[in-house]
């Protein structure tokens, strides 16, 4: 915005003719590139944090990593220390750590002596399936409730939804998981309990690692139903917090646009609410809602540690938990590095999506 005396009075109405498409698309590109640069710096920062945390922890990594026999063999210890650069000064160690990282080497788990990357690749699809399903549920339910609350502003529905939304963000995820497991599995037996599939069902052939998708791809209808039924309970439990969050944000985003003149004009010319709300209101409110999805993703990661533990879901959360409780450092660092990088990338994508949805950002 140029704060010239004339335009600053009515900045929104300022008409600037002759702005070509090419000129207005470049600032958006610059915006994306700037965000991307920040992303790279942040990723580097994350590795520094992970590295510093690893090196402040007391203990002898060689002793923890090598077996009982190898630890008595000085050559093996020296070889291990040399491979991970543990005989070098700290800054050099960080360089070596980064180098290993670039080659996809996150070290070895101290528990099962597998490569951490291998363990992660086993766990990621399980969590991805759960997280995607849960965010999908949260977005649909949360946005609908938020729109409903905004449309019925200050009526009984609105007040009830406020309590519902506050209740959603107040529930301890692990507790709700336990209650849901007791009620829907143990008492009513409507849904299966723990795990990704019934014990008698074989996993579908591996395409993506997401069992529901893989089952569909290979046409195993029975496996799909089974995997989906296993997904429902943990997915909905995980969605509870985000439903509360999205209801609130959607409500205020919708309220911000719903009193605009163009909405009133659309209603005045006779368009019914069922057309005005999705087309005029929700479309304008969408950028404000999309920003919350980055936050929702962080909540899903936090929640999945707790939910996966209760539901014995073999994902990232449970892996993180097991490595934290056994103080398996390479594994913890691997998980947190992975989660942080994914989280940062999600936020980057959200920023870009925001730019795509909100045309004003592209022009300025």
């Amino acid at each position, binding site marked *: 915005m140029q704060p010239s005396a004339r335009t600053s009075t009515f900045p929104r109405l300022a008409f600037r003719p002759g702005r070509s498409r090419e000129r207005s698309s470049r600032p958006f590109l610059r915006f994306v590139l700037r965000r991307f640069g920040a992303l790279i710096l942040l990723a580097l920062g994350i590795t520094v944090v992970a590295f510093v945390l690893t090196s402040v922890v007391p203990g002898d990594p060689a002793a923890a990593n090598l077996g009982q026999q190898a630890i008595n063999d000085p050559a093996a210890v020296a070889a291990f220390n040399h491979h991970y650069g543990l005989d070098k000064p700290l800054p050099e160690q960080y360089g070596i750590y980064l180098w290993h990282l670039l080659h996809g080497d996150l070290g070895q788990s101290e528990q099962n002596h597998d490569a951490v990357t291998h363990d992660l690749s086993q766990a990621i699809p399980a969590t991805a399936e759960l997280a995607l399903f849960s965010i999908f549920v949260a977005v649909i339910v949360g946005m609908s409730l938020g729109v409903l609350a905004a449309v019925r502003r200050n009526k009984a529905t609105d007040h009830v939804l406020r309590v519902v939304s506050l209740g959603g963000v107040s529930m*301890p995820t692990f*507790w709700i998981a336990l209650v849901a497991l007791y009620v829907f599995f143990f008492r009513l037996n409507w849904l299966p309990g723990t795990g990704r599939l019934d014990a008698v069902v074989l996993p579908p052939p591996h395409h993506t690692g997401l069992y529901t998708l893989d089952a569909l791809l290979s046409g195993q209808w029975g496996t799909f139903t089974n995997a989906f039924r296993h997904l429902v309970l943990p997915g909905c439990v995980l969605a509870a917090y985000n439903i509360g969050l999205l209801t609130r944000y959607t409500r205020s985003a919708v309220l911000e646009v719903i009193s605009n003149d163009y909405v009133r004009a659309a209603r005045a010319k006779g368009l019914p609410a069922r057309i005005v709300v999705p087309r005029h209101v929700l479309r304008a409110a969408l950028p404000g809602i999309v920003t919350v999805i980055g936050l929702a993703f962080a909540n899903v990661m936090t929640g999945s*540690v707790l939910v996966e533990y209760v539901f014995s879901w073999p994902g990232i959360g449970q892996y*993180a938990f097991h490595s934290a*409780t056994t103080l398996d450092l390479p594994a913890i660092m691997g998980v947190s590095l992975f989660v942080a990088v994914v*989280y940062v990338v999600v936020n980057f994508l959200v920023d870009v999506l925001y730019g795509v949805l909100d045309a004003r950002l592209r022009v300025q």
Partner: protein
Amino acid sequence: MTAGAPAPSAPIRLRLWQRRRPLSRAVGLRHPLTLVGLTIAGAWIVIAIFAPWIAPYDPVTDTTLPALHAPSWHYLFGTDELGRDVLSRTLFGARTTIPLGLLLVGVSLLIGSTLGAIAGYFGGPIDGLVMRLTDLVFAFPAIILAMVTTAALGRGIQNAVIALIVVSWPSYARVVRGLVRQLSQSEYVLSARLLGASARRALVRDVLPNVAGPVLVLATLDLGNAILLLSGLSFLGLGPQPPKPEWGLSVAEGVNYFQYWWVGTFPGLAIFTVVLAFNFLGDSLRDRLDPQSSWSRGGDD
């Protein structure tokens, strides 16, 4: 200041604004959400203080009761697998979680606001450093960073609290920085400076009082989140260790005996009600301080 005799030239709106309000209304006591929140939170604080006198059994040493007994007149919330009274353990749990939550939020608020105010006021490289630090903390989902920190420091109550302070200070730093930056450019602060007030005086007298409100709202809402995270960590076994009566820990015991629903349900219900109370309070406080995003927008006031 008072509404007794407004200056004749004062516009009518000004008089409306300065009308003396009953205290209960000013504090928001007539708001049902505030009332419910205050009642529940107050009840839990009373319980936390008087737990040894209210609880029917000792939460740790009374292990001679029948194990896994369903709720009954003798044991209102039932007994757990070691023959301890769940009601007593739930009541005593308030003595761990509530003070720790308050401590946690208090320390994070202090650290975060100080850093935020410094960053916002001085700007430049200090500002850049503090903000990049908050970016970095925000890059990790809270529980993962807290888990890593507790793993690095060793498990236990003290380390769980430290870990959560590491996770929670940045939100205060960001809010305070933004407000200080915005307010120190505002006209009334500039005119105070122009009239000869020192930077320090302007910051303390003119800027900080306006920062206090939003920070208070944030702290109240954050208290709920802090308690959720704290009990999450102890649910995972990274916080207080057994046999301490602690809610998250008790829910974790309930997972192993989940057919006996009362073992985990009641301590979890305790967490839920405490967090809900603080969220009710924080949300209605936000309404009063920020009518823009108010839930009852266009409503009674």
